[in-house]
């Protein structure tokens, strides 16, 4: 889990900037690969929806996928990392356990009488700021105990997280740690070597202080005060 990332000094491994996410320039040069992956994935979904793998389904799926790609273009989400099967298994296993724990936690809170959960909103700055990492981390932390994503600041790589049943600052620090640990697990599973190196930099916000960067909390204008 805590193994050092391989010291990789080769092509495509520029010195990771101290602050910013690794530039996706290398990945940008491969738009065709991304489109092919999307095409194959959508054709596979089409076949699964029909329930049969026939040549007709495959051709129809490819046609529909091509039409979707042409007529509904989305901003490119490039995958610049690599899959690591062992870390992926760790991610999956921990995710399933945490999903069960989270469900039991929420279920217990729901059926408990006379308990009014106190909650909080914290801002957590992630270390790897690619779109893919932000989105996947946000998805994952909504399904692990106690945290729920409510807002994403894409430019600064900040997730605004709602914490259920927070009784004190230590609960908030624990939630912040949990988000960063989830991110680390994800990057170890699918991140690029440069992103892995970013994990070794200390977390941008001091985990001990819940209000560590008060300027970052309250991301949006909430309209007139009540």
């Amino acid at each position, binding site marked *: 889990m805590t193994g050092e990332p391989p010291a990789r000094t080769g092509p495509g491994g520029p010195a990771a900037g101290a602050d910013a996410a690794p530039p996706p320039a290398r990945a940008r040069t491969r738009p065709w690969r991304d489109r092919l992956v999307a095409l194959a994935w959508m054709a596979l979904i089409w076949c699964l929806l029909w329930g049969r793998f026939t040549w007709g389904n495959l051709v129809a799926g490819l046609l529909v996928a091509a039409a979707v790609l042409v007529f509904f273009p989305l901003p490119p989400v490039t995958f610049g990392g690599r899959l690591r099967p062992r870390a992926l298994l760790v991610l999956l296993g921990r995710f399933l356990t945490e999903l*069960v724990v989270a469900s039991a936690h*929420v279920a217990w*809170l*729901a059926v408990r009488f006379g308990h009014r959960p106190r909650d909080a909103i914290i801002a957590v700055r992630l270390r790897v700021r690619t779109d893919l990492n932000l989105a996947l981390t946000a998805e994952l932390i909504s*399904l692990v105990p106690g945290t729920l994503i409510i807002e994403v600041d894409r430019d600064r790589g900040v997730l605004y997280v709602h914490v259920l049943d927070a009784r004190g600052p230590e609960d908030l620090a624990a939630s912040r740690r949990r988000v960063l640990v989830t991110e680390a697990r994800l990057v170890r599973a699918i991140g690029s070597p440069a992103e892995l190196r970013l994990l070794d930099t200390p977390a941008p916000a001091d985990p001990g202080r819940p209000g560590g960067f008060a300027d970052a*909390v309250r991301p*949006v204008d*909430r309209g007139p005060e009540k």
Partner: protein
Amino acid sequence: MTWGAVADWAGAACLVLGGLLSLVAGIGVLRFPTVLDRMHAATKPQVLGVLLLLAGVALRLRTPSDIGMIVLVAIFQLATAPVAAQMIGRAAYRSGRVERPLADADQR
């Protein structure tokens, strides 16, 4: 007992468990005080409940094409439930419907 019977019983257990979790998710949505708390109930127990129900159905049906469809449903459930909860939570947050005394670590 044959393997088929074992799978049937395991599937039945999954179905009951998934149903109970979905029920608890509903109770949570009803009983939690704020929108954001309710979204917790609508994501975690609900997603696990659906996954268990799907596992139960898969164990009962045991045909490749059905299992393909079930896997697809599971993937999309996992991908969309947090997004839906986030959209609702964000709307509540932006329109100021997050109760201040409860969200007490906000802007501390």
